């Protein structure tokens, strides 16, 4: 199981356990675990609804591509540890990741 620590916008923290081999990105996974993410663009790195701050495990993430960086530039609350969850594939590499959700919900 891959464990990810998630803090929602209300500050509640939970560790979610995700089976290996699940063919989803982190945004889709969070939605499947019933986190309130609107995900307007559906995962194209265009809307930033799945913006998150990464507290731990930053170094395990693949480098952000140009579109993700462009979209993050539209977030007033972006920091140098910001990512879009839709651009992070679930894999054993990100086991132990700790994030806080920053984007819009429904």
């Amino acid at each position, binding site marked *: 199981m891959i464990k990810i620590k998630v803090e929602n916008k209300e500050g509640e923290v939970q560790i979610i356990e995700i089976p290996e081999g699940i063919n989803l990105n982190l945004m889709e996974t969070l939605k499947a675990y019933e986190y309130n993410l609107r995900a307007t663009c559906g995962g194209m790195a265009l809307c930033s609804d799945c913006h998150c701050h990464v507290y731990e495990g930053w170094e395990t993430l693949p480098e952000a591509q140009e579109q993700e960086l462009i979209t993050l*530039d*539209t977030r007033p609350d972006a*920091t140098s540890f910001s990512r879009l969850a839709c651009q992070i594939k679930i894999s054993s590499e990100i086991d132990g990741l700790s994030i806080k959700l920053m984007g819009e919900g429904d």
Partner: protein
Amino acid sequence: MEHIKTDICIIGAGPVGLFAVFEAGLLKMRCHLIDVLPQVGGQLSEIYPQKPIYDIPGFPVINAQDLVNGLMDQIATFKPGFSLGERVDHLERIEDGTFIIRTNENTEVHSKAVVIAGGLGCFEPRKPAIEGLEEFEGKGVSYMVRNPELYRDKRLVLSGGGDSALDWTIFLSEVASEVTLVHRGDTFRGAPDSAEKVFELANRGKINLVLQSHITEIHGNGHLKGVTIQGKNNDVSTIETDYLIPLFGLTPKLGPIADWGLNVDKSAIEVNTLDYSTNIEGIFAIGDINTYPGKLKLILCGFHEAALMAQSAFKFVYPDQKLSFKYTTVYGVNTF
């Protein structure tokens, strides 16, 4: 004030709102569309115009903007009216069962039925989380540049790192007495020419470029007087300014729709899947804005919803007529 009389007022000119014009037109119902965005197409044009879509029947792949253009061609024959760049602020069902819809630009539409095809709501400027920011809206803080002359010979702070922040910084450097651009990064990912120009303006001392920083506080007394900026190393400085323009793009919000007495669940309007009618007689909701058991936010589902809605809206537009279902293959598409 502009007065418009129509059969159906469609709020939202995204793909589903546009296709609703076609389905209504087949039943001889005229439509007027209102959208807060300055162009038709909704999310497709605003968020992902160049992205391919693979699940439109009959099109193995179609570019989002091409789909919007195709829909506009398809409905042209029904001569819909458009009020673009306007937000519906007021919706009222009057005594005779018809509706008065009023926008923030004072356009008034009188219709026999209303179709809300508002996607995820109104696109509104994304606001930075700065305490007291909203108190200064219209008093030095604005999220778009409507009239550049307002800033002539004034001191101005812009924040953001996208194309819009770059373009307005360049333009307003020729208008304002002092322009400061605050950006959280140290590079810009907007158009390379614009980014280059901004750095050049900073090198020439025409603008102040404050990188790796963000605005944490705003100050004033009735009108904006200054902003506090925090840098990467937590160093803090305050600069005096007459205006602050945060430019962080648009994000959809349900907006005034929430105040119209409709049953809403998590920012979506509850509908009856028989005809996508809402709890208010004569008001329908189709596309991403509605919710029902099994709802899928897909364009093709919205198209289906538009077809069923039109059959039911007919009785509000032509209460004395019987509706007979007709195929376009038999009768074609007859214009008004």
